[in-house]
């Protein structure tokens, strides 16, 4: 556990150095650390793969633009995930505006919990979509982003205990939804 934390800090220092430097190739160091968990986080927020891909691109463009501020930030993960949260919210707002003509249909699409599950993956996706956003964020980062509760806590700027309890609550809800079993 301690080693993971040391590795994490070493990697953070490498990212700060890359972002503080002048070579555009420095963005690749950021990609290696953040691309996968950020993509999972954005998928959790946006539900559609194409939207998550667009949002991921925007997040990396913003990271490149604000690289000096990010390199100097005390909480590197918190800064990066704040950009991602903001980008996801912007995309949802834009999407809702775009689909304002068919507002009712758009709302249905945003709330995938109402969509009839077509297969195992769809059923899981629908169950995840029905979770409160705060719990879904933690599940996406823990299970799909392979992050520890400590790392999730830093990224979402919440206490590690809160991250763990949100995960527990989410699993309890999913147990009911997916297994039809009550804890």
């Amino acid at each position: 556990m301690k080693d993971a934390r040391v590795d994490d800090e070493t990697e953070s220092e490498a990212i700060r150095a890359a972002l503080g430097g002048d070579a555009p190739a420095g963005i690749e160091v950021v990609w290696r650390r953040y691309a996968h968990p950020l993509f999972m986080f954005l998928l959790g927020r946006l539900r559609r793969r194409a939207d998550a891909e667009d949002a991921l691109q925007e997040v990396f463009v913003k990271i490149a633009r604000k690289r000096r501020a990010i390199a100097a930030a005390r909480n590197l993960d918190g800064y990066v995930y704040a950009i991602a949260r903001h980008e996801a919210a912007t995309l949802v707002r834009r999407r809702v505006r775009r689909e304002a003509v068919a507002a009712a249909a758009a709302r249905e699409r945003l709330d995938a919990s109402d969509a009839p599950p077509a297969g195992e993956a769809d059923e899981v996706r629908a169950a995840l979509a029905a979770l409160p956003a705060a719990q879904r964020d933690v599940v996406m980062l823990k299970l799909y982003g392979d992050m520890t509760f400590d790392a999730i806590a830093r990224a979402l700027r919440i206490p590690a205990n809160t991250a763990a309890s949100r995960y527990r609550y989410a699993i309890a809800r999913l147990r009911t939804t997916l297994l039809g079993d009550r804890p």
Partner: protein
Amino acid sequence: MIRDADAGRLVEARLRAAAPPRPDPALEARVLRAARAAWRDTDREAPAGLVWLWPVAAAAAVLLAVGAAQSSDRLLARRAPVDPGAARAAGAGAVWAAHEAGAPWRAFARAAAARRPPMWCSLRDAGAFLGEDG
């Protein structure tokens, strides 16, 4: 009823089995290309942190210039007092002429105004005081 720990593991197993795919190489290439371009663009722009300094620097320069002009006026008025009698004899036309020639005309005005309130007087007031309308 399934035991809590087993149920938790079962749920996690189902979630993992339905894990969304990782970002693919095509997406990686697209995102990195856009990010590198943004990186180079910001290199060409002025450092964002210093942008707010420009208006502050401009305002400070204006204040300094005004302050310097006022203090030089005061200095000139102090250093080159004009005898009110001589100023009256010269008339307001001479004030204008002195002003045109680049002389510290305010010194004339202030010297003339010093003889009676108000403390400050304009060039026109100075002319009136000196007995001419300019």
